[in-house]
C-alpha cells in the first residue's frame, strides 16, 4: 500500500519489546498486543524475535474457519475474526503455520495483527514499525530494504505446504552455525577452557 511493504528481520531484534507496548496502545484493541514475541532460548542466548502476521495470500486460518469469520481484503490484509461470526473454536490458532492468531479471553474471539489497518489504509506506518529502534520490524519501500545485507523472501515451505505471503521475511545471505556459549570465547591460561577462536 502506498509503495510500502512490511519486512521482518529477527536478526535485528534486540528484545526491547517496544513493538508490544506500541501495539497495546492502539485504540482498536487497547491493552492487548497482537505482536508475537519470543526469546528463542534465553538460557542459551540473548537472541529474540518479534513477529507480526505474515498475511498469507491463501490464509490457512480463513480456510479452516468453520464459521467463515476470517476475511482477507483486496489489499491482502487478513483481519481479526468477525465478532458476530466467531465461535471461538480455536481452529485457526491450531492451524496457522506461523502461530499468529490469538484466542482472546474473555471476549471469546480470535484476534490477530491486521497491520494497523486503520493506519496503513490511510498511508501511515504500522505502530510497531514506527517504534522499532533496530528496524527488525520495518515498513519501508523496497529500494530501502535492498540496501540491507539480508534478502527478502515471501515464500515459505511447511512440509508439503507452500505458502506465499504479503509480508516479507529477511533471510541471511549465507548460513553459519552460531556459537552461543560465552565460554567458547574466553581464555584462561592453565584451565580446562582452551581457546577455541579460530
Amino acid at each position, binding site marked *: 500500500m502506498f509503495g510500502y511493504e512490511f519486512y521482518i528481520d529477527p*536478526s*535485528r531484534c*534486540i*528484545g*526491547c*519489546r*517496544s513493538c*508490544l*507496548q506500541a501495539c*497495546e496502545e492502539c485504540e482498536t484493541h487497547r491493552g492487548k498486543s497482537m505482536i508475537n514475541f519470543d526469546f528463542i532460548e*534465553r*538460557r*542459551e*542466548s*540473548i*537472541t*529474540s524475535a518479534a513477529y507480526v502476521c505474515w498475511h498469507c495470500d491463501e490464509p490457512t486460518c480463513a480456510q479452516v474457519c468453520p464459521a467463515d469469520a476470517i476475511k482477507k481484503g483486496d489489499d491482502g490484509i487478513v483481519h481479526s475474526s468477525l465478532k458476530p461470526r466467531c465461535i471461538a473454536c480455536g481452529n485457526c490458532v491450531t492451524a496457522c503455520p506461523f502461530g499468529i492468531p490469538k484466542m482472546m479471553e474473555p471476549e471469546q474471539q480470535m484476534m490477530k495483527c491486521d497491520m494497523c489497518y486503520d493506519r496503513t489504509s490511510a498511508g501511515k506506518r504500522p505502530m510497531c514499525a514506527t517504534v522499532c*529502534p*533496530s*528496524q527488525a520490524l520495518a515498513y519501508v519501500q523496497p529500494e530501502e530494504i535492498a*540496501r*540491507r*545485507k539480508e534478502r527478502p523472501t515471501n515464500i515459505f515451505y511447511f512440509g508439503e505446504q507452500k505458502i506465499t505471503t504479503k509480508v516479507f521475511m529477511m533471510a541471511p545471505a549465507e548460513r553459519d552455525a552460531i556459537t*552461543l*556459549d*560465552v*565460554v567458547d*570465547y*574466553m*581464555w*584462561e*591460561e592453565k584451565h580446562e577452557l582452551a*581457546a577455541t*577462536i579460530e
Partner: protein
Amino acid sequence: MTAARFPSEIPKAEVLFVIGANIGECAPITTDYIWRCRDNGGRLIVADPRMTPITRNADLYLPLRPGTDLALLLGMLHVILRDGLEDREFIHRYTTGFEDVAADAKQWDPRRSAEIAGVPPEAIEKAARWIGKSKRAILMHARGLEHQSKGVENCSAVVNIALATGNIGREGSGPTMITGQGNGQGGREHGQKCDQLPGQRSLADPAARQYVAGVWGIRPEELPQPGYSAQEIMNAIHSGEIKGLLSMCFNPLVSLPDANFTREALSKLEFFGVIDFFMSETAHHADVVLAGSLHEEEDGLGCSAEGRVIHWQKSIDPPGQARRDCDIIIDIAHRLGRGRYFPFKNPADILEELRVASRGGVADYYGITYERVDQQKGIFWPCPDLDHPGTPILFMDKRFYTHDGKAHFNKAEWRPSGDPVNEEYPLYLTTGRVVSQYLSGTQTRRIGALVDQYPEPRAEIHPRLAQQHSINDGDWVTVMTRRDDLTIRAMVVRTIRPDTVFIPYHWAGTRSANRLTHRTLDPRSKIPEFKVSACRIKLAAKPDTSDDDRPAHRNGTSQGCT
C-alpha cells in the same frame, strides 16, 4: 568527547569497536545505525562481560573480566604498534606524547593482556588488526568503561588507539562516548557540573571566571571554587561537613553506591529540599518537596548524545500544583534575594543568557536560537555565529582543544579495582540496566507494562557457577559483598562469564543492587566504581519481604510511591 557524532557517522565506519556499552538496552535507537553499518560491510567488535543484545550480530566478541578493559586496550595498542599499523603522519603532524605511550604499550603484549582480561590473545590481536588496517574505525564506549576507579585511564586508552591510527577528525571514525540521559550531554556544556561554567569552561580558569562573572553582572570573587561531585557531596553530608541539600530529579538512595551509607547520610541532613516530578525513595527523606515537571511539561533546548542541540517541545501543562522546574528555581532565587540575576520569564530568555555565557567556550552556543534549531532540526555545537552552520564532525581541521592545538596522548597506567576479588570474595559483581527500566526507576517503576516486562532485579549467573552452588533458574540466591548482602532470584544464562554476577540497579530497598557496590572513586572524574565489585554467592531461602516495597503491578494494588 564526542569526536564521532553518531549516529549519522556510524554506518560509514569499516569497524565499530563497542566496549562497555549495552547499546541495545541503553541506547536502543542507536542499534539501527549499527545494523546499517553491517549492511554496508562494516565489522562489529563487542567487548563486554555479558552478551548484550547487539552481540547477536558481532563479528568478534571479547567477554572480558569486569574492570580489565584497560589491559585489553593496552594490548590492542601494543599489537597496532608492533605490526606497524599506526598512522605515522597523523601522529607526527597533529599529536604530542606518543613516544611515552608507545613505550608503555611495549610492556603489554597480548598474552599479558589476555591473562588479565580473560579473553584469547588471538582475539585481542584480531581486534587490533581490524582497527589498525581499516580506513575508518569508530570506538564507542559508555558506563561500562567509565564507571570504574580507572575510568579516565580507560577512556584515555581508547583515545590513544584512535590517535595512533588517525581515527579522528574524519568521516566515519573517532572515539565516541555514548552519553546517557536526554540532556546528559548538555549537562556537560551548560555549566551544571560542580567544576564547570557555561560553554564547558572550567570554574578554576581565571579567564573563564572573569568572562562569565561579567555576563552575570557579578565580581569573579563571588563565584565559588570547584565544588564536590555527587558522591563527594554524600560523603561530606555523612561526615557533617554539609548540613543542607537542595536536589533536583536525584534519587541517590537508588543511584549512588553503598546505599546503606547514603541512607545514613540523608538522615543526618538538617535541611533537605527536593524538586522532583514523583515522590522518589529519596524524596521521602526530604523536609520540603516541590513538585516539578517532566520534560513533556516544560519547553526547552537540550543537547543529544551526538552533540546536537535539539528542541524539546512542551506537550502538556504540569498537573495540579506542580510547576515548571525553571519557575521553581527562579522563585527560590527571588526568595534568596538574588532575583535580579534571574530576570527570566521563559526558557527562551535563559537560552539568550547561555548563548552569551558559552560564547568563545568549547561548547559555543552563540549561533544557536530556537528558530534555527527548529529550521535545521537541531544544530551541532560549536556554533559560534548566527550564520555558522554548526559542526557535525569535530576536529575536521585537526585543531584540538588544547593550548598547542594538538591532540595529546595521555599515558594510561594499569591499576587494580578499588574492591579487589580474593579468596573470600572470589567473584566479580557488575551492575547495569535493563531495557524496560530507566535510571533509578522513579518514572518507569510506576508504569504497569514496563513493570510486567521486568518486575524485579535478577542475579544473572552462568550455568557453570550455578551448578557449583546447586542453584537453578528462578531460585533465590544471596549475593554478598564487603558492604552488604542482597537476596534475589537467580537468572541462569550462558550469556555471562562464569566468574561474574550481574544485577540491574533500578530498584530500591531490599532489591537495591547499590547496597552491594562500593564508593571508590576515579581520582579525576570522581565517578564511583559501579561496574566492578568483589562478591560471593550462595543458594538462599525466600526472603521475608513483608516490609518490602513491592512493584506496582497493573493488576495489583499500587503502593503509591515507587
